[in-house]
């Protein structure tokens, strides 16, 4: 029975929708939750929505594999890269995917340390976003290399050529950073999932499911020792992943900031990129949370309060981006540096002005709709806003790459950049790869952190009853 809250007229829309301010819906038992989530993994049927999107994603993956084969066989000339725009879509895609991955990590790690219990429903989804995002992000620096099979030259291994990598280059920092980030995400995700894999194993009816989950769960039995170690390790890993969330995108931003190119050589890049990453990542998590909630009927687990919180975070980060986009022209004007001032002018009015203004509209303008509660808590609206933000963030990355490179110091070196079919195929193909990996992860593995949701439900109940 829901407690009666008197309508004082000053209630927000969220309070009217969720009178008790609870994070989960009533009529909800612990065992029921575990059974529900385990059945989503174990049953052979899949929701139609999941199947549709997964099939489209696989089709895009096929396109991606064709595009990659063409790229590796024919060469980087199939893409639109030229001199001076030597970094174009591949690196824009790389930065965009890393952004998306980092946002997922923020939810898992930083909100874990901040003891924000509401994040427990979205944990698995955001970690799956991270892993899928890293898969896609990691591919692009390899693919744009020209001789992608020589990627291992970036590592300091003893070789007969007597050459070593240049550790002063941010590109090498990227290699180490990405490898560390991938390992961190994978281990954090896997360790956190052991209890849930055990729960699925205990409910498995078929031998295959039992064996697979059993091996993956490593024999987890829920003993007090294991829970104690788990809690400690989880906090430690979240604590290690947190600086990584900030530094990984800082290192990516230093790829640009350490270059002398006008428009790139700015100290605002590290916080600017990290903030953009949080925005893009949370937008992706929002969209996918809406989809997965619909597909797997998780309305009792992912509630409007989650969307409300996600929306608020997105709004905050977009306001910080607005600040950055005010400071950049101001700094350029204040510096009285002709090249910087020209770059700012060119971005707003030149050949690629459409990317600049579409980012302002989609990345900064559209999130301002999130000031209104109904745009945050209605799933369809939040999803639409999030998709527009994600597209806007891609426009921003593209704008950054191409505007600064196509018009740098010497007018004799200026050239325009035009995308080719290969560029488009790689971009949309990578979206397909991301969705395919993500949808596999949420289908084949528990879609929400069962024990974490149960724990936070307990805490919520205890808090409301006034029990310590």
């Amino acid at each position, binding site marked *: 029975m829901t407690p009666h809250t008197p309508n004082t007229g000053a209630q927000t829309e969220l309070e009217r929708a969720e009178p008790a301010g609870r994070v989960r819906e009533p009529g909800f038992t*612990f*065992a029921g939750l*575990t059974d529900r989530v385990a059945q989503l993994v174990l049953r052979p049927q899949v929701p139609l929505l999941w199947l549709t999107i997964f099939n489209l994603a696989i089709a895009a993956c096929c396109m991606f594999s064709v595009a990659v084969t063409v790229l590796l066989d024919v060469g980087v000339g199939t893409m639109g890269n030229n001199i001076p725009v030597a970094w174009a879509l591949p690196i824009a895609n790389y930065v965009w995917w890393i952004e998306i991955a980092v946002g997922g990590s923020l939810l898992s790690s930083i909100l874990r340390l901040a003891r924000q219990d509401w994040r427990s429903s979205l944990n698995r989804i955001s970690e799956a976003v991270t892993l899928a995002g890293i898969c896609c992000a990691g591919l692009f620096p390899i693919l744009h290399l020209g001789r992608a099979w020589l990627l291992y030259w970036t590592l*300091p291994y003893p070789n007969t050529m*007597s*050459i*070593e*990598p*240049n*550790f*002063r280059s*941010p590109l*090498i*920092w990227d290699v*180490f*950073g990405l*490898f*560390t980030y991938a*390992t*961190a995400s994978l*281990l*954090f995700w896997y*360790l956190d999932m*052991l*209890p849930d894999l055990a*729960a699925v194993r*205990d*409910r498995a009816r078929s031998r295959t499911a039992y064996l697979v989950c*059993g*091996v993956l769960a*490593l*024999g*987890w*039995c*829920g*003993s*007090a*020792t*294991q*829970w*104690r*170690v*788990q*809690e*400690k*390790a989880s906090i*430690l*890993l979240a604590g*290690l*992943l947190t*600086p*990584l969330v900030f*530094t990984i995108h800082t*290192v990516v931003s*230093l790829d640009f900031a350490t270059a002398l190119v006008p428009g790139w050589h700015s100290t605002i890049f590290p916080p600017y990129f990290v903030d953009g990453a949080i925005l893009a990542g949370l937008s992706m998590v929002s969209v996918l949370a809406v989809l997965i909630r619909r597909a797997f009927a998780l309305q009792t687990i992912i509630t409007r309060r989650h969307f409300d919180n996600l929306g608020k975070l997105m709004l905050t980060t977009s306001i910080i981006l607005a600040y950055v986009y005010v400071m950049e022209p101001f700094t350029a004007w204040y510096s009285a540096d002709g090249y910087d001032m020209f770059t700012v002018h060119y971005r707003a009015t030149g050949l690629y002005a459409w990317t600049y203004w579409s980012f302002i509209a989609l990345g900064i303008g559209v999130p301002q709709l999130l000031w209104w509660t109904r745009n945050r808590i209605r799933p369809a609206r939040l999803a639409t806003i999030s998709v527009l933000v994600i597209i806007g963030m891609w426009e921003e990355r593209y704008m950054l790459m191409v505007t600064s490179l196509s018009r740098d110091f010497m007018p004799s070196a200026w050239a325009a950049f035009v995308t080719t079919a290969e560029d488009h195929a790689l971009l949309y193909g990578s979206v397909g790869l991301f969705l395919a990996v993500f949808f596999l992860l949420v289908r084949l593995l528990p879609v929400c952190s069962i*024990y974490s949701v*149960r*724990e936070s439900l*307990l805490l919520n109940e205890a808090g409301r009853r006034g029990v310590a």
Partner: protein
Amino acid sequence: MKSYGIVAVFDNAEDLIRAVRASYAAGFRRMETYSPYPVPEVDSFLPGWELLSPVAFISGVAGGVLGFGVQYYIAVALYPTNIGGRPLNSWPAFAVIAFEMVVLFALLAVFASALFFEKLPRLYQPLYRTPDSVERLRDRFALCIEATDPLFFSKHPYSFLTSLDPLHVWQVTYD
């Protein structure tokens, strides 16, 4: 049949905490609880220790030293490049990868030591030997007084645990 212990199953966490308190008061020390989610109140009554933070710290430091050392050795000794006469030991640049190595080694150490102290992988668990026991233990809170407890053969844990009014009590054996 070698005995592993006596296990009692309860319906909720409060009963489990009460049972653990009572068992501790009765003198049993080698106990273990099994639950679908963490119940931190029982931790003070159970034996066990773990060493995650120091291991992580030492590994992190080792990783940092290794990361910085490799870069220093390569840049100064193995493959020095004269870039405008700048110092070969460009440590501000090396700090980035050194930091990444700190994090990498620390998290590898946390992961490995977490598995070690959780005693995983351990695919044979005496408690979950039979389908019956799996059914009884699923989503329940269990307390197991292990056979290695000094009072196991003198204090009759079976009747003691039965007196605590659990859902099920049975003896767990190794085969």
